[in-house]
């Protein structure tokens, strides 16, 4: 049985800045700070609520780094779960409808 797709999206309650290869993310709710390395940054930048994590891993991780798809997906899933636990991003089992531009 195929694994269920998940669709991560960035929380509105954060501030982030990419500095060099790393990305700093700060929760504006509790001021917790996270530092993402280059792989985390690649995933973070692709997270948009409409792209499934499997595609992000395929396009942004496996295409750039020597790692199997299975391993990369498992690591990425753990990564997004950890950020979701802190409210840095949210995870949905369906694409998140995008707000239309005014």
């Amino acid at each position, binding site marked *: 049985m195929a694994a269920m797709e998940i669709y991560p999206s960035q929380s509105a309650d954060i501030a982030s*800045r990419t*500095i060099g290869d*790393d990305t*700093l993310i*700060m929760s*504006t*709710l509790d*001021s917790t700070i996270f530092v993402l390395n280059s792989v985390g940054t690649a995933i973070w930048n692709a997270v948009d609520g409409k792209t499934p994590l499997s595609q992000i891993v395929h396009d942004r991780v496996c295409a750039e780094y020597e790692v199997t798809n299975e391993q990369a997906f498992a690591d990425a899933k753990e990564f997004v779960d950890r950020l979701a636990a802190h409210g840095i991003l949210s995870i949905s089992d369906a694409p998140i409808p995008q707000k239309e531009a005014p």
Partner: protein
Amino acid sequence: MQFPGTEPNHDVTIEIGGFPIEVQTTDAEFERILKGRYGDYVRPGAASRFSLRVRLTAPASFDPDADAEVWLEDREWKMERGDFRASWNPEEGCGEVLQSANPYSIDSVLRIVHTLMLATEGGFLLHASSAVRNGKAFLFSGVSEAGKTTMARLAPPDVELLTDEASYVRKVDGCYYAYGTPFAGEFGEPGKNISAPIAALYLLNKASENRIEEIDPAIAVQRILRNILFFAHEPGMVRQVFESACAFVAAVPVRQLSFFPDPRVWELIG
């Protein structure tokens, strides 16, 4: 002539970081307390578009180590601790303070108000000692016991101290300046009321020898954020402080200063 119901003003204008704030009081003894506490930071007769009206109450017992609560309500900042209640309207540049006649409560209110004013223009108050040498400012930041006051104590005679506790960082025309503050730590003395462009910020680390090391910018931002005095946890303010720390690291050299606490460490500075 004094009209019924009016009392003479004993206002004191206190200028820190180039922001003069008129502290309005009708109490002559409180005026004396303010002038004694703020010394060179008092600007007699200076025009100010910022004001704090202080209403004095009877002293009450309180926990001196308690944190102040700061929150935004109807576009006004409210702040409260056991020994004071205050408000600050950022659009009008004025506020009110309810406290007893002591210098500690107004000192805390001023620190909070200055952090709020600084945040809107990319500046901040930082747990750091700072000093001017050869026309340039150097900041020494760290947590408690990291060596902020030690660096101030070890400074040679040609160094002018801005503070040993809370460094005042302002962004003016795209450049970062450090200003002297009356906010003293263990050193017990206010800093000199001068300013200079910031040449470097050193993150302190006690060691067996003196050396300056490069530090990863992301780590630098993280460590600076830990040391920014940050009373208001309203999301918009948190975002502004985060952006300010990132912009500062992009513009100012931030290094780690490992130091052995003797005067030779100053041979590396300036």
